């Protein structure tokens, strides 16, 4: 176990808030796309509504959790990576 004191958490209000608002939203849209893929056997009318509703918990969950990140830069990096994964996964599957 290291005795090193963990680095101080930077406040970075604006960077974290913007990351939560924008990348949180796009991540929620990306996840809703994955959910849409999972539910593809369902009729579009009901599926589209369920998928739309799924945006709120993901977006708000990410947005409210974003202040746990050490810094604004980390928030942008991690959420950016998560976005790439959410949008890239279906695309990669289609190729593979």
């Amino acid at each position, binding site marked *: 176990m290291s005795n090193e004191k963990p680095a101080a958490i930077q406040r970075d209000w604006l960077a974290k808030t913007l990351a939560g*608002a924008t990348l949180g939203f796009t991540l929620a849209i990306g996840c*809703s796309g994955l959910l849409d893929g999972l539910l593809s056997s369902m009729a579009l009318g009901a599926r589209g509504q369920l998928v*739309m509703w799924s945006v709120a918990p993901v977006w*708000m*969950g990410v*947005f409210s959790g974003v202040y746990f990140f050490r810094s604004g830069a980390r928030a942008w990096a991690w959420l950016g990576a998560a976005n790439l994964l959410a949008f890239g996964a279906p695309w990669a599957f289609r190729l593979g």
Partner: protein
Amino acid sequence: MRSEVIRIYKRVHAWTGIVAGMALFIAFYAGALTIFKEPLARWVAPPHAETAMSLDEAQTLIVRALKARPEMAKDFHLYLKSAEHLPAGIGWQARPAGADEHDSASARHYVATLDATGAVRIEETHPSRLPEFIDTLHRVVGLPVDNDPSRWVMGVVAVLYALALVSGVIVLLPSLVKDFFALRVDRNPKRMWLDAHNVVGIVSLPFHVVMALTAVIFAWHDGIYRVQDTLVHGGRWANAFQRPGGPSRAAPRDPAAMLPPAELLSRVQAFSPTFEAGALQYLQATGPRAAVRVWGHDPGAHSPRALGGFVGLDPYSGKVTSTDFMPGKQDAANATVASFFALHLGTYGGTPVQWMYFLLGLAGAWLFYSGNLLWVETRRRKQAGDDSAPPVQRRDARLMAAATVGVCLGSVCGISLAIAGGKWLHVLTGEANAGIVPLYYAVFFAAVIWAFLRGAARASVHLLWLAAVLAFAIPLTTLLAWLFPSLGLWAHGSAAALGVDATALMGGIGFAWLARVAARRAWHGPRDSVWSALAAKPPRKTNR
């Protein structure tokens, strides 16, 4: 959890709370009342001529009314149970082109009934806009119109609400076990307010999680659907609800060929014996794709909308065409989507759940009020000792206290006056609808101005007394209508209407009690606080 994280979330909680708190107070107070939108509509509705109509006459009425007014074929309702606000007969609305779909204020309402000779009588009616106005205050956090810009404001408030909720829980978590059952009513008033704020927040947490997530969706659904149509549905979303078959130029069908309402209802009864029908909504009745929606409730199931749910039928064949919105008969996906609406609207479990939502809504309003009080209390300047003079309180604390008192109590007073005014304006001017909105905002802004002029300590006492008086004005209006029929007022004796009077009476007693407590605090409480009427006056600004 690291204390640093807790500190950061304390800031998040304070800022989101203070920015959105007053808007949320109005949303929750008006929302709690909106749970009883129908009783309010019944309480305020002017009396209409009693026209009893048997279900067997309904078909004749529909056919004759359609002949007289072919344009109503687009969309009309047959009401099965008449009430103070609903005539026995059919009703429809005409909306001006280009009106916002959420804005019902611009619609004109018509009612068709049969007179004694069997002739159709068509009248324009003027249903009170009061219940819809309170609902609008709720939906767009105190703004007058439910349109796109208002919903953006509401959307920002909804997001701040969600952030405040989660950050508040994170802040409380480390000390939850220690703090939860503690209500320390001792000499430290801040501790007591904080304990009470925490207890109410945690106890109603599931309710607030539901409200925050659904409010975000209610505000942003148009935008989310648009983004998802491009990124997820590949542009097919717009067609998801279109029924097959293009527009046809076929001659209008003969409405007399439709199955009579009694027959349609018995088909529904056979299809779902527990479904209790309340109204039939006919869509494109003379068109090739005529549909009838039988609206109602199922006591054993949740309803997707405030008015219940519906089963779709073909009025000419009587065949059931859709159960997507029928309580108890929805498939899993539609029942899940409907549950989100039902959880927000409280349309499950009947009257007990409605009262539970009413109380949780009021508790929510109190939660935001107490949050602002805590913000102010945190910035309090304490007296150094018993002998020293009380210090002048910080300017931001004085202004926030005044704003909180003015906005919150102003909306409470305004809503009460709008309710009572819904009857008095009708008596005094013959028409109440034009005056309800100005009445509300007059009181609201007057209260806000008063709070800033007189300061939070004095204004809170005045405005609480005013809130009590205006709440009492509601049952008093009913009482006067009974005692002095010559006034031209009216009073309904149904349980729903009397329930409004009784609730307002209780509310008035509550506000009077609060006013007395606030007065005691202002004149006999510690003077080193913005809540003391005897607090040190800030130095006057000198003009340079």
